[in-house]
Every structure is written in C-alpha cells, then in structure tokens.
C-alpha cells in the first residue's frame, strides 16, 4: 500500500518536473499577450511592432565560454568589446530605432556554455526561442561558430561571427545567408601575405608545428601551399595533440633542421612553452610566426614581464594604436577595461567594427527585424573604425568581410609592441613599421 | 563409476602447495567429510572441484567426465553445487530471489519463471525459511543465512553438494538441525562432501572422512577408523588421543 503511494508520489514529481517548464512558459506567453491590453487606451500605430509601447531595450543574447577550455579566449577580446559597446551605447541613452520612435538601450543575456558544443547549441536555441532576443551574438571559436551558424540560419537570426574563421566556414557560407564572418583566416590573405613577405626576404626553408585540430590542420595545410607557391621548401609539418604539454624535443628537432621560417600554428598553451623552449635552447630562426596567442599583450609579458624579450616574433595582427587615431582611442579604452595584457591586435580590430555595423544598420533601417538588417548589411558599406567596411556576399548566402577593409594581416613584436608589418596592397592597409628579417637574437638570460 | 574422482590434484599459490597431489573418490549417495587443521587446503580443494581454480597438475572427474578445465557455471549446470565458508548470499535481494536465481540458472535446460518460483517456495518451505521469503537476505540470522545458502545450492538441483563449514557459528540446537538437514538431503539421493570442524557432526553424519594436512591427504576412512588413526590424532586431534575441537 505504502509502496504504491510512494510510486504515485514519484510519478507526481516526474509530472511536475515535466510540466514545470510548460507552466513557466505558459505564464510567460500570457504576460506577453496580455501586455498590450494593459494599455487599452492606446493602440499600436500602423506599421509598428506589437511591442511598440512596451519595448524597454534591445535584447542581445550570446552563449559564451565563461568556463572551460575556451574561457581564456572568450574572456580576452570579444567579451570586452561587447562590454565596452554596451556601456557606450547605454551612456548615450541607447540606439535610436525608428520603428519605436525612440532610443532603446541595449541589454545582454550571456549564458555559460562551459565550452561544450551541445550546451552552446541548446543555449542558442533558448536565446532565440525562449528569450526571444532581438540580436544573437556569436559563440566563441571556429568549431562553435561552425555549429552555431546553421542554427542561426535556421531561425533566420543574423549572426555576425567574431572569434573564428576557416576555409571550411567560407565553403559553407553560400548556404548560410544569415551568417557573416569577420575574422580573417589562413588563406584569407594572412598566409599568402606572409609567404610573399618571406619570399621577398629570400627565405628558403620553413618548419611548421601545428595543433591537431581544425585550426592547426588548416593553417598547416595552407602554409604548405603558400610556401610552395613562392618556392619555400617546407621541411616538416608536425602536428601535436591539443593536450600535449612538453615541446622540448619538437623545438630541438626544428632547431636541428635549421629553417629560415618557423611557424607555430597553435594556441597559447603551446605557443608560450614553445617560445620559452626556443629561448632556452637558443633556437633563433630568421622568421618566427606564431598564433593565435602571440598577438596578445600577455604573450609579451610571459617571459619575465618585459615584452622586449619577444622582439622580432611575428604574429597575425590587423591594427595597433598607430594605425589611426580611432584605433588609438579604441585600444586605450580597451586597455583601461581589460589591461594591456589582454589587448589583441588581431581580433579586436575586427570585433570593434562589428558592433558599429550592427548599430549603424539598426539606425539606418529603423528596425530590429533580422531579415531587414541582414539584407541591409549584405548590401551596404559601413563607416567603421576600419574605414569603409563591407562584406563580400556569396550569392544568396552569407558574407565575408572583404580583404580591402583589412588594415593589416601580419604583425611583429618591435620595441615591446606589435607593429603592423604586412598586409598586401589593398586600400585600407596601414603598415606601422618595416618587417625585421632576420629577427634579432633572443636576449641572453 | 565414482560420482567424483580426483587424481593427483595439486594447486600452488606462489611457491606454496596449498593442495598437494591429493587423490580422492566419492561414491554416489555418500556423505564424505573433509577435515584438517586451518590452512590444510580443504577450502582450496573445494575451490578446485567447483572450478574457481584449475588444478595444476591433476585431474578431476565428475561421473567420469573430465571437469578439470570447466568454468564454475558449467560445473554447476552439470550438477555440482556448493556453499561457502563465509556466506556469500545476495544480501540486498529478498530471500526468495536468492533461491530463484539458483533455480533459474542451475540447470542447462531453461526453466520457466513460474516453475522457478514454485520450486523456490517449496525449497524455502523445506528449509523452514518461508516466513522470511520476502526479507532482504542480509537481515537474516547467520544460521538462516547458511540455510539460505544450502537452499540456493539445492535449487540448482545438484547431484553433488559441497558444504563448506556449514555448522561454524551455529549453536547446539542449530547444529542438531543442520545435521538433520544433511541427513534429509542425503535421503533425497544427493551426494554430499562437507568441510566441517564440529566433530560431533562429522562423526555422526559422515560415511567416510578424508583428512588433509598441509595440502596432503594423510588419512581416509570411516569415522571410527579416523578417530583411532595415530597420524590423525598426531596432527589434528591433539597428542593425547582426545578428539578436541581444533
């Protein structure tokens, strides 16, 4: 008898569990539908959205890696840009949206995906379906964006991506009209430019270490091609597992091979120890390119706290304070927010204009309708910190920020900062210094 | 044909022979006692017969079939069941489920659920455990846990039953009950080999006794022969000819 009652009790619990979310959303829906009736005296003007009177802010959602392996990446560059923008816009009273005939402040909902794609996917759908965000900001990392893009596309949500770019993503862009990619990637003028730079200095051989994931494979592969194009012989292309921790032997082998160009296409957990090992055993090839990781302030500070130590290391970088007064201002503001160690001369220059593009598109179209915004962004040029900024569209598909808007591709540590030393010859390029080749010796310990 | 027969059965642990070249024969319907001081290799011999270990070297036959390299579950399905020195009941399962497990799996032919339940209830009745059929086995008294082990072994419908220190820890009345039980199991036509320290039980119940010492068989015979054997008294019963409990 008691057992039966117990089972009933458990059953009720299960039902309650299952029903709880339903009831909760039920209530939520009710609130929203009854909201206009609370103001029975006014009806929504013709052609205006249903929440004309009740809209309090522009709701922006993002699923970010606040914890887990990607947290350092997510915390360093794009997160602060969002934060900075939020403060700036809200200090100004918000963004003027014509549909509502007033300025609407912005509000972020940021969930922690704990660096897990399954969680990120679910939270993205929660943001879209449950929180009904007006705008969706991108997840962190190429893999995550690769998974998020089809979902944003499926729900017709504009997705301008930040920390991620890959040739594979470009390949899938034609089927993803709502997705815009901002960060340049391997063959998107970074490695071609770098290969040309090396060839111009007369480099003959290259040695590549890459991380055994999407990023490493792609950069390793493209570097192989590009070096081949300019006649540089790739001696080795070694790939290391993500969780590997000791690089002494790899660096020694590289040293023994005596290459002109040494490439490390990996993240900070590999980039930093490899650099340390190079210093320790005195491996100093004429050109050293590393990234992502070497493009951050912390890279310079990691070897005794003085960025002069990494003098001559080459990395991916788009702009620095010298690029333009606007960038000087932006980098100063970012430095105040996150400190010099977290400045990112590669990503930040491309994340900064994203929010400007969105803001300008909203003001220009006067709506938060993602379809309208998408079409506007796809077809217009914007005046951002980069100057004239626009996307190359893939037929009916998504967009890729064109190389002509890139202020630079390749940076190099010189006198304790990353100078922009390479970037092809398109209009926006602003080089801030000459590329030093061969790089100077590591300082004596 | 002997129901159970061993030739030169030997088992080494490390460098030490726990069972050392033991020959034994058990006739159909007999009750054979296996005695010897602690560490003499009695339980190891049981483990060899029931295939927990394989003898090396040595051969064990059951009804003339070589069972030296069989697995425990095969041995059981051939008709040898056993109990354990330290009871190994399924403590969290109800008593009836313990017995049903034996009834289900003990035979190579499949048994229907209804039949298994029916047989198990009968066995519990026979063992005087019907009142506690639905109690978790761990809540039984030690004596009842031992009876449950026997019931579970009997549920596999064995022809040969190995009882390992069934009386240990039982009081006088319980020992008497256990002796009765053994006799009645024997009357069912089941051959029994038992390890026992309670001499009264051994002397009264067994048809024949095998004495092990340091892994070797030192004597074999009827209870009377054993009680008067010089060598047995020497190592086991105490030097002054009294059958003291070891």
């Amino acid at each position: 008898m008691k057992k039966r009652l117990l089972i009933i009790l458990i059953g009720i619990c299960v039902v309650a569990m299952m029903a709880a979310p339903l009831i909760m959303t039920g209530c939520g829906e009710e609130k929203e539908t009854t909201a206009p009736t609370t103001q029975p005296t006014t009806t929504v003007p013709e052609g205006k959205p249903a929440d004309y009177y009740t809209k309090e802010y522009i709701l922006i959602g993002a699923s970010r890696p606040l914890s887990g392996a990607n947290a350092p990446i997510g915390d360093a560059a794009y997160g602060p840009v969002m934060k900075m923008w939020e403060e700036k816009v809200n200090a100004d009273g918000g963004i003027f949206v014509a549909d509502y005939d007033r300025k609407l402040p912005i509000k972020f909902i940021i969930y922690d995906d704990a660096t897990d794609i399954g969680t990120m996917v679910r939270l993205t759908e929660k943001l879209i379906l449950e929180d009904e965000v007006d705008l969706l900001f991108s997840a962190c990392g190429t893999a995550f964006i690769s998974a998020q893009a089809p979902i944003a596309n499926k729900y017709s949500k504009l997705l301008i991506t930040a920390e991620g770019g890959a040739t594979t993503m470009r390949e899938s862009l034609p089927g993803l009209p709502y997705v815009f990619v901002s960060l340049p990637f391997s063959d998107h003028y970074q490695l071609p430019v770098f290969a040309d730079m090396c060839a111009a200095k007369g480099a003959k051989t290259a040695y590549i270490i890459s991380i055994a994931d999407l990023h490493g494979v792609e950069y390793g592969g493209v570097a192989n091609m590009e070096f081949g194009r300019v006649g540089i012989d790739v001696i080795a292309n070694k790939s290391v597992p993500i969780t590997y921790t000791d690089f002494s032997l790899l660096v020694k082998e590289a040293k023994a091979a005596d290459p002109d160009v040494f490439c490390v296409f990996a993240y900070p957990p590999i980039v930093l120890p490899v650099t340390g090992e190079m210093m320790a055993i005195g491996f100093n090839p004429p050109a050293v390119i590393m990234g992502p990781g070497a493009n951050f302030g912390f890279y310079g500070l990691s070897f005794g706290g003085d960025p002069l130590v990494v003098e001559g290391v080459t990395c991916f970088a788009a702009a620095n304070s010298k690029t333009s007064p606007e960038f000087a201002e932006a980098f100063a503001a970012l430095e105040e927010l996150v400190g010099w160690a977290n400045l990112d001369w590669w990503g930040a220059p491309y994340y900064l204009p994203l929010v400007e593009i969105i803001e300008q598109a909203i003001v220009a179209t006067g709506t938060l309708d993602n379809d309208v915004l998408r079409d506007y962004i796809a077809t217009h040029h914007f005046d951002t910190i980069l100057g004239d900024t626009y996307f190359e569209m893939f037929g009916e598909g998504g967009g890729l920020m064109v190389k002509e808007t890139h202020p630079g591709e390749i940076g190099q540590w010189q006198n304790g900062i990353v100078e922009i030393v390479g970037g092809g010859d398109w209009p926006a390029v602003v080089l801030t210094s000459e590329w030093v080749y061969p790089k100077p010796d590591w300082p004596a310990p | 044909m002997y129901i159970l027969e061993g030739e030169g059965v030997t088992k080494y642990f490390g460098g030490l022979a726990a069972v050392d070249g033991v020959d034994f024969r058990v006739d159909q319907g007999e009750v054979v006692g296996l005695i010897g001081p602690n560490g003499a290799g009695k339980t190891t011999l049981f483990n060899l017969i029931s295939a927990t270990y394989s003898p090396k070297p040595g051969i064990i036959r059951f009804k003339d079939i070589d069972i030296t390299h069989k697995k425990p579950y095969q041995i059981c399905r051939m008709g040898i069941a056993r109990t354990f020195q330290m009871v190994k009941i399924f403590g969290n399962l109800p008593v009836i489920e313990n017995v049903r497990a034996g009834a289900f799996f003990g035979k190579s032919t499949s048994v229907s659920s209804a039949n298994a339940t029916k047989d198990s209830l009968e066995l519990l009745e026979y063992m005087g455990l019907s009142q506690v059929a639905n109690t978790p086995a761990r809540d039984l008294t030690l004596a009842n846990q031992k009876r449950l082990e026997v019931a579970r072994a009997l549920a596999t419908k064995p022809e040969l039953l190995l009882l390992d220190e069934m009386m240990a820890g039982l009081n006088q009345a319980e020992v008497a009950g256990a002796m009765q039980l053994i006799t009645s199991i024997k009357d069912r036509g089941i051959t029994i080999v038992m390890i026992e320290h309670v001499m009264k039980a051994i002397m009264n119940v067994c048809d024949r006794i095998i004495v092990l010492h340091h892994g070797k068989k030192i004597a074999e015979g009827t209870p009377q022969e054993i009680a008067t054997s010089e060598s047995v008294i020497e190592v086991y019963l105490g030097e002054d000819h009294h059958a003291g409990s070891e």
Partner: protein
Amino acid sequence: MPESIVNILDIAIGGLLLGGIYALIAMGMSLQYGVARVLNFSHGEFIMVGAFSTLTLYTVVGINPLICLVIIGPVIFLIGFLLHRTLFHQLSLRAPNADAYAASSILASFGLLFIIQNLALLGWGADYQAYTYLNFGVSIGGAIFSANKLVILGFSIGIGLIFYIFLARTRTGKGIRAAAQDPATASLMGVNINRVLALCFGFGAAMAGIAGVLYSMRIPLNPAMGTQYTIIAIIVIVLGGLGSIPGAFIGGLILGIIGEVVTSIDPSLSMAAYYFIFMLLLLVRPKGIFGK
C-alpha cells in the same frame, strides 16, 4: 660529438626530464590513492592552484618561485588535510564498504574539481597568464636543456627521495606505510588512522601544489588547465602500480621516455600512445609494472 648521439641523448635525457615532471605530478596522486583510498580527480586542480599562487606571488609580490615552494606547499597541505578531515572522512563514515567509498570519493573529488576550478576562475580570471623562470639552456654532453626542467627533475627526485626516507625512517612514515597495508591492524598498533589518512591526503595535495609551483615556470596558466595533468597522473600511477610511490616515480620516468620516443617519431600520436600503453598495461598487468 656526432649528431646522432646528441639526438639519442636528447631523447633519453629529455625523456627523463619530462618523466621527472610526470613523476612529480603523479606521486601525490599515488599517495592519495595508496593510503587514503581516494582516486582524486581534482588532483590537477591542486596543481593549477599551486601554479597560479606562484604566479601571483612572483609577479605581484616578487617572491622567487623556489621560495614559493616553502609557502605554497604547506598551505596546500593544510587545505588537503582539512578537506580529508571534513569531506572524505565523512564520506568514509557513510560508505557501507570500501567499494562504495571508492565510488563516492571519486565523485566527490569530481565535485571538488568543479568548485576549485570555478573559484580559480573567479579569483584569477579566465585569461592565460604566464611568467618564466630559469629559462636558459644548460648543455649536457652537447644536448641543451632548459634549466628549469633540470630544476624540476631535481626537485622531483629530491621530493621523491625525501618522502621515501620519511616513509622508511620516521615513526609517522612507518605509520603511513602500515596504514596503507592494513588500516585496522595499524590502528591496533596505535596509529591514528584518521589523522594519517588526512596527512596523506594533505601530502598528496601538497605534492600537487609543489608540482604546480615548479611547472608554472614553464607553462601558461589558466583555470581549466588541471584536467590534463590529472589524466597524465592517472596514466602514470597505473603504469607504476596503483598506490605505489616508487612505482609512480619510475612510472613517470618511463612515460616520459616513451613520450619522447613517440614524439620523435610522430608527435601527433604521442597522447594516443600514452593511452594505448596505459590500457594495454591495464589488460596485461593491471597491478602495474611494479605491482606484486
């Protein structure tokens, strides 16, 4: 010297040096498992805490990392000691048997992993941080190794030896060994089992912390870094025999050499090789190379 010999030296000595790091990481975990019977999945988090504390002390206060050892080791020991006294001791009281305790302590240590990692995230932030120390080359027979690696191997051997002597010679050390073999009998000898277990858990945590202090000279830090070291430690202690401290030490060295050899053939297979060897060993000789 001919290049091939240097190369062999590179691999052999490099393997030993790498193994020294692995040994240091694994010894503490082995101790925690061997005596306190906790397979501590949060072991790597203690390494992380040790590393971050060093970074803070070195870069903010300016304390030499080697001096940090003396500060951080005892603090983490205390944390481990108290953790065992409270959490794991309670668990052992509640567990009906050893297997249940093994399972519940694994899960509790998993909970600790989350807690410590999140606290580190709140305290130190998610970003990568790094410093380097003693990062210069030292030549051994023509092969060059970074000094901090030699220092780590030195400490690894030193700590291993000191602990070995502590276990072999001192009263408490003997108590620990006795408790590892048979806790009930040890307590009959007068060993305060709860205290010894907590001590061992504390020592294990302190060794992890010290490993973190030393290893932080070489690697960039972030709060999520611990897990990979936990996994390496598990591989090493299985290799050396669960619970054996000399086993963990030698297992670490062996894994280091295997790592360097595989890396010299195909670095992308190195981690796979670790797991493969580890699982093969579990199948062939679950008690480890030195297990009895």
